[in-house]
């Protein structure tokens, strides 16, 4: 089953008559990591939600290489502030598998494997809401990856984390990427964008201001706003 290429055609999000994002045209191929950058309020989160299908399109449409329903089934989303189910770490991990009808024993095996992969194995029996911020985000990431999504959205996954937790998260993302998971993440951390991006979408004021391969964008940004943003100036 193939999700890509995905084509978004003049998608828009409006709320109370005000346009938050768009119109944006976008084509995504099936490889690598796309990083969405831009200042706060540029519409990064809304764009991810529109593509994921959790925010309603006010206009435009999104075409996947398969049906939208199948596409939704093969996606996962990691939030800036991880949402922890009020259960143990193990139960959090098996939850998405159980939703898809995976048998309990099998789900448990997968959960233990993923807990080991993200370094949460000793905490399997702990209640998830009492974990530290970094541990919660790692759990959220493992819970998103456990269903082997073909496409993973991450909305500023490291915004509230320190350096070490960020490095661990990025290591997991790198291995997910090399295992063939397509990543789309938003960040306003330039360093993270450079480390992870294969291509870049630069959003400004709800519009796609500049887009291109990461090396091109970071070395020779075309627009003055992108140049200013990368210099660290405040862009509005």
């Amino acid at each position, binding site marked *: 089953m193939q999700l890509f290429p995905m084509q978004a055609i003049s998608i828009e999000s409006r709320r109370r008559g005000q346009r938050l994002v768009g119109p944006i045209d976008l084509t995504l191929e099936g490889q690598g990591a796309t990083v969405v950058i831009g200042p706060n309020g540029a519409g990064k989160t809304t764009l991810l939600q529109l593509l*994921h299908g959790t925010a309603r399109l006010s206009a435009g449409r999104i075409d996947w290489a398969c049906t939208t329903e199948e596409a*939704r089934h093969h996606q996962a*989303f990691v939030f800036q502030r991880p949402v922890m*189910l*009020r*259960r143990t770490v193990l139960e959090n991990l098996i939850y998405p598998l159980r*939703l898809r009808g995976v048998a309990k024993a099998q789900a448990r095996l997968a959960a233990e494997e993923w807990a080991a992969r993200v370094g949460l194995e000793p905490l399997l029996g702990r*209640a998830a809401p009492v974990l530290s911020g970094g541990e919660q985000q790692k759990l959220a990431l493992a819970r998103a990856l456990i269903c082997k999504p073909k496409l993973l959205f991450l909305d500023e996954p490291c915004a509230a984390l320190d350096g070490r937790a960020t490095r661990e998260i990025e290591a997991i993302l790198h291995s997910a990427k090399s295992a063939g998971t397509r990543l789309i993440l938003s960040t306003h951390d330039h360093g993270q964008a450079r480390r992870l991006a294969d291509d870049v979408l630069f959003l400004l004021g709800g519009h796609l201001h500049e887009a291109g391969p990461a090396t091109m964008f970071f070395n020779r940004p075309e627009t003055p706003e992108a140049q200013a943003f990368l210099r660290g100036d405040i862009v509005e």
Partner: protein
Amino acid sequence: MVDIWSGLTQAFWLVFTLDPELVEIAGRSLQVTVSALVVACLIALPLAALVAVKRFRARRLVIAVLNALMGLPPVVVGLIVYVVLSRSGPLGVLGLLFTPTAMIIAQVIIIVPLIASIAHQSIRELWQEYHDLLISMNVTQGQKIRTLLWDSRRALLTAALAGFGRAIGEVGAIMIVGGNIDHATRVLTTAIALETGKGEFALALALGFVLIGLAVAVNLAIHWLGRTEREGRW
């Protein structure tokens, strides 16, 4: 003061000797109230979850009505159930009036709004917390409701205990629909009302202390079984 003291001693002896009449009355109190509680929870908890997650036109109205019905006067509920179940009423053929079943029906009507309102409050909070995740995971409505009910189970226990407290201490409605018939529909509260009316204050007080003891014991037992106040913040 003398009455209270003799009530206490009498309560002690009634319990200590396992007075057969007391055991029967207390047992019926528990049986009626626990049955009503189980039925009420089966109605109120899914209803609370549904109202919390489903967007429909009359949602605000349903919530407002549930909250208002928390203060439903038991006597009026008893009266209405009486009229419905009486010989000439619409459900008269069932012959339920003056049976424990009629008392259960009345209690269910009284405590469903209470349990549903308290449960709705905490389920709604949990839903706000879970909303983005569950929407992203594309859960069905049934999975959503099951997840929310399971993960707010401790708050729901509190709601159920509030319902239990209201039902076991209730007298107006079950007096009307049960009739306080000896060996058939007499429970602790109706027996207390009767003994007070007869001027047997000591016996009435004794039954009252037994009732309080029973309510406290059940609450403690459920807290202990549910292991609330342990394991994390919920």
